[in-house]
């Protein structure tokens, strides 16, 4: 939960309320406001920021992720990756308005929400979503679309693990099932709550997701997005099996140029992902933005330095992989850590991921083609746990806030306890998504099959699955 963001935004809230001509004094804030009252608590600057962030996160999936992944595969499979990302994002968007938003962000159980807002029933231009500041709201549609892009990109992250050897429709089917059984529940567990103006109201206090209730900190989706996808990817590549010629033929990236373009646009888009997750536009948003930037830059350098030491020269693939690892690691910490903390997190994550993508992967011999587990899984876990440390105000972190008091007040920070909570949250995510993914992959493999024929795989999925070539120079 992002309780502590309250701290960061109290001044923002003050100014907002001042500007709204409302007295800023706590006792004058409105607890449990009505929609009409919420309407007066919307700031168009926040709304604009959420719209922009949404566009940035879509850009992360198409074209950024598609290019990042596509550039790493062989020419004959390039198009299949572009296609998979493009269609998965489309399916994810439709599924989100159909049931996803409702399952993730309406009350129900601590594990999953209800269907009261299926097909966005009851959502309108006059309904609002809570932020992390008392008496600050955004249009609910803005919250719907912002979260929609998260639900759309997460399954697309998974496909890198078994790139170049998957059947198209069974993959799409998996993504649908996985969204329903893994993404929506975990998003609900980690992010669902009634909002800062309601938590102190007995009737609503119970409307919270499981991990949120435990007090797990995940600013922008370290667990929900990255660990979730990273583990699903690992399971997937194990069930699907290795590529023909794995470790025999060379399989160099067909275009590191496109991979670099993808990585760059991912970096740019990630600002919407992380800073957008503050749901409003204030000093804390700028901090989350800065931390995202710093962690990516630091991880780029540490990866490059590791390569310099290990291989005598730095590679572009190393640089962009480092940047990605840094972005993944800082995701849960973006609004909690100090810039110095983000710097350290970035410097540490690259060597750790490096060991996994080079040594560990080779050792165990699984074919996680594009290192979804090695980067998103491992980087996400490191970041999630690291957040427990870096959020400590004693280290310049933002701490957490107690919303059961109205208006919210700073809570006392116990690093040890927080780290344990983070570990527990990671554990739940890993188990939940691991089991769901395995069952889904296994069933689909049995019923429809996951893998194209050896001949098709050799000829390449572009021709055999889509009847096209990525290039006809």
């Amino acid at each position, binding site marked *: 939960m992002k309780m502590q963001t309250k701290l960061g935004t109290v001044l923002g809230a003050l100014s907002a309320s001042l500007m709204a001509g409302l007295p800023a004094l706590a006792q004058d804030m409105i607890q449990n406001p009505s929609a009409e009252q919420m309407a007066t608590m919307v700031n168009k600057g926040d709304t604009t920021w959420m719209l922009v962030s949404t566009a940035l996160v879509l850009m992360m999936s198409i074209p950024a992720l598609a290019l990042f992944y596509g550039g790493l595969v062989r020419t004959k499979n390039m198009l299949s990756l572009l296609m998979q990302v493009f269609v998965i994002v489309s399916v994810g968007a439709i599924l989100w308005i159909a049931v996803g938003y409702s399952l993730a962000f309406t009350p129900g159980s601590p594990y999953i929400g209800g269907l009261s807002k299926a097909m966005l029933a009851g959502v309108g231009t006059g309904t609002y979503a809570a932020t992390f500041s008392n008496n600050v709201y955004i249009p609910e549609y803005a919250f719907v679309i912002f979260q929609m892009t998260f639900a759309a990109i997460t399954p697309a992250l998974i496909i890198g693990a078994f790139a170049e050897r998957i059947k198209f429709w069974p993959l799409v089917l998996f993504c649908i099932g996985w969204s329903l059984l893994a993404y929506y529940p975990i998003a609900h567990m980690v992010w669902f709550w009634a909002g800062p103006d309601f938590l102190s109201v007995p009737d609503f206090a119970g409307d919270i997701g499981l991990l949120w209730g435990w007090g797990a900190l995940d600013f922008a989706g370290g667990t929900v997005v990255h660990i979730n996808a990273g583990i699903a990817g690992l399971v997937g590549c194990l069930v699907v099996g290795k590529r023909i010629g794995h470790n025999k033929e060379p399989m*160099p990236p067909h275009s590191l140029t496109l991979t670099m373009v993808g990585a760059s646009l991912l970096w740019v888009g990630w600002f919407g992902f992380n800073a957008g997750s503050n749901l409003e536009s204030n000093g804390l948003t700028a901090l989350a933005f800065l931390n995202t930037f710093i962690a990516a830059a630091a991880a780029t350098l540490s990866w490059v330095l590791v390569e310099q030491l290990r291989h005598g020269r730095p590679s572009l693939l190393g640089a962009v*992989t480092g940047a990605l690892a840094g972005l993944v690691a800082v995701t849960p910490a973006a609004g909690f850590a100090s810039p110095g903390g983000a710097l350290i997190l970035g410097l540490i994550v690259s060597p750790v991921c490096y060991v996994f993508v080079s040594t560990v992967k080779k050792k165990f011999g699984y074919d996680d083609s594009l290192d979804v587990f090695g980067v998103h899984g491992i980087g996400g876990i490191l970041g999630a746990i690291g957040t427990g440390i870096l959020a400590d105000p004693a280290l310049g972190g933002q701490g957490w806030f107690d919303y059961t008091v109205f208006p919210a007040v700073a809570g006392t920070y116990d690093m040890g306890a927080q780290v344990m909570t983070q570990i527990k949250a990671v554990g739940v995510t890993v188990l939940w998504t691991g089991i769901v993914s395995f069952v889904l992959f296994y069933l689909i493999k049995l019923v429809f099959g996951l893998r194209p024929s050896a001949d098709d795989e050799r000829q390449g999925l572009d021709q055999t699955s889509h009847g096209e070539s990525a290039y006809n120079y």
Partner: protein
Amino acid sequence: MKLIIAAIKPFKLEEVREALTAIGVRGMMVTEIKGFGSQSGHTEIYRGAEYAVNFVPKVRLEIVVADALSDQVVKTIRETAKTDKIGDGKIFVLDVEHAVRVRTGETDDDAL
């Protein structure tokens, strides 16, 4: 007529072409190829995984000339393509029975 096939280092192409034009060669076919030979390739490392690249980029020339010119062409290529480093390339000479210029229909030596 002879068909002279030569594999040389790419950056030598311009130089060789000029030298050949100088001795009266009026045409050739150039292909970018992957060469395999005693000049070993290199290893590329992607995220810690090493790949041996056994092929070296080379340029392949095909030149058809009248028998008379053949030796001189071989000599010229040899001298201009030479860097005394391994991988300088090879020259092969084959016999050509017949040649035609598409545009005019001229044949054999006149076709060149």
